[in-house]
């Protein structure tokens, strides 16, 4: 989806703040008092929904039984956050959520599906610039370059040399040397 106009944004803010102030207390009272599973209220174009915890635990496990549980969980997470079709984060959920929560590091990802080989000279602590070659992924014998996505310092590796990796998989952390500007930008 394209980014939306400032005016629309402000309208959204007003509407949602309205929801929060006027409707939430009523919702809280109603849901707290009743035995309902969930409550939803519309205000203009917006909805607020409160849901009482349902025992989905066992069943979720069930749904992932005999399947790539991590993958299913990933899919769920994507849904829960509503960023349907947004796939610019690769790799396992664990890594994915880390990047989401820690704005001061970013991961170098695999350019292809194959076997990973880090560059010998590049070890934890080495300083790298965006675009520097820090390793390669071997695809049917042809090496594909792995490059540092940002300026920073090589941090913990998430996969070992010789491991099979998929496209977009996070390989190694690059610790950012972040400026305040960058930070506030991320927190916005």
């Amino acid at each position, binding site marked *: 989806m394209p980014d939306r106009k400032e005016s629309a944004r402000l309208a959204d803010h007003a509407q949602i703040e309205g929801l929060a102030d006027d409707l939430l207390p009523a919702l809280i009272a109603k849901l707290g008092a009743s035995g309902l599973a969930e409550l939803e209220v519309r205000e203009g174009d917006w909805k607020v929904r409160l849901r009482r915890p349902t025992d989905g635990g066992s069943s979720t496990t069930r749904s992932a039984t005999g399947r790539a549980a991590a993958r299913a969980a990933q899919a769920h997470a994507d849904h829960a956050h509503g960023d349907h079709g947004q796939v610019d984060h690769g790799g396992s959920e664990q890594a994915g959520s880390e990047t989401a929560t820690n704005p001061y590091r970013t991961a170098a990802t695999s350019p292809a599906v194959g076997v990973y080989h880090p560059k010998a000279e590049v070890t934890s602590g080495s300083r790298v610039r965006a675009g520097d070659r820090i390793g390669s992924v071997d695809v*049917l014998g042809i090496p594909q370059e792995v490059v540092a996505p940002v300026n920073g310092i090589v941090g913990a590796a998430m996969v070992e040399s010789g491991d099979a990796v998929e496209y977009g998989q996070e390989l190694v952390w690059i610790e950012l040397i972040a400026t305040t500007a960058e930070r506030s930008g991320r927190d916005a």
Partner: protein
Amino acid sequence: MFAKILIANRGEIAVRILRACRTLGVEAVVAYSEADRDSLAVQLADEAICIGPADAKRSYLSAPAVISAAIVTGCDAIHPGYGFLSEDEGFAEVVRAHQLTFIGPPPQVLERFASKEATRRLLGAQGLATIPGSNGMLRDDLHALEEAERIGYPVLIKPSAGGGGKGMRMVRTPRELESAVKICRSEARAAFGDDSLYLEKWLEDNRHVEVQVAVDRFGHGVHLGERDCSVQRRHQKFLEEAPTPALGEAARAELAERAIKAVVAAGYENVGTLEFLVDGSGNAYFIEINCRIQVEHPVTEMLTGIDLVVAQIRIAAGEPLGFSQADVTLRGHAIEFRINAEDVEHDFRPSTGLVERYLAPGGPGVRVDSHLFTGYEVPPFYDSLLGKLIVWGPDRPAAIARALAALDELVIDGVVTNVKIHQALLRNETFLAGQMTTNLVDRVGAGAFLAAGAR
């Protein structure tokens, strides 16, 4: 049998192949692009691997990515589905070079049937009537004009590679020919990386009838009857049925028997489809063979009860077919409706979006092969097929009655679909009379169909 199969496709066919693997008790790995991370196939898969970005050229169409994925996941076979790499004999060759099995005909068979023009000569020699056509590929405009003159206008320009209407033009006069050839060459080059073209006599008001065959490595072959795919828009099938209303029982049996005899003699292997054009007097002309599983294969499964994808995998694994022609019985009538994300009211332009609510029809004789689910986001990067509704009935009217009920029951909220054109067809007298020809929808105009259906 294979130990582990890589499914190198997406959408409903990836789910279909996964189900076949489960039935066979074979492990499967779903290879997916970043755009399909949340897809049903990935969710259902025991194992899945991301092979590239949304752009198919770097994922589903990338031979190195697919083969590398198969190797790192420990697969010993690759199922290409339909489209993408499914009919690329070069790919099949590289797959074999890496000690993997391509699920489909072996490379040398794919190669033998790679050129449509050569295939027409090969099977023509085995007794299949073919449409008068150009003598080989068109060398240049002069050659094209000479051949068109000889065959007689109108003629159809066709690309040697690929299918799906790309690089195809019907031409009625020499004046149109040169420019049409130029357009077809560039279309064919863009779509298939091969711009060789040939000419075919254009049959007005023809029917598209195809025969499904299965041949094992030991030369045991059976046909599984025919399908009628005459309901097309711009050379794109969107409704298929069996048996064909165009031919009587005897004619259908004879066509199918001639087809299986010819392909077995020509050394074909695995499942495949021979396409014929049938003219007004019921003459069937062979036009091409599809060496893959087809979108419309469920129509045949409904009539025969035979799982074609399972058969395809078994044959590729070197197993005998396991049944004979006598075991193939065709029961009742089946119709498949392709449910596409298309806005029929705006020239069938593709639509995308979030499926807010999905309710599939069901009940006796109703099958839905789809990758949809409530909450699925239809990505904009691939073809518009959302799934297939297949209905079966003891006879054609019964199947049509079920289809009307099922289409009315289908709910896909949030994405515009082509359901309306199907509902219009089911109320169209030409269709109800079993008289559809491949050019009818385009000649009448989809708009007119919809208007008539709305009445």
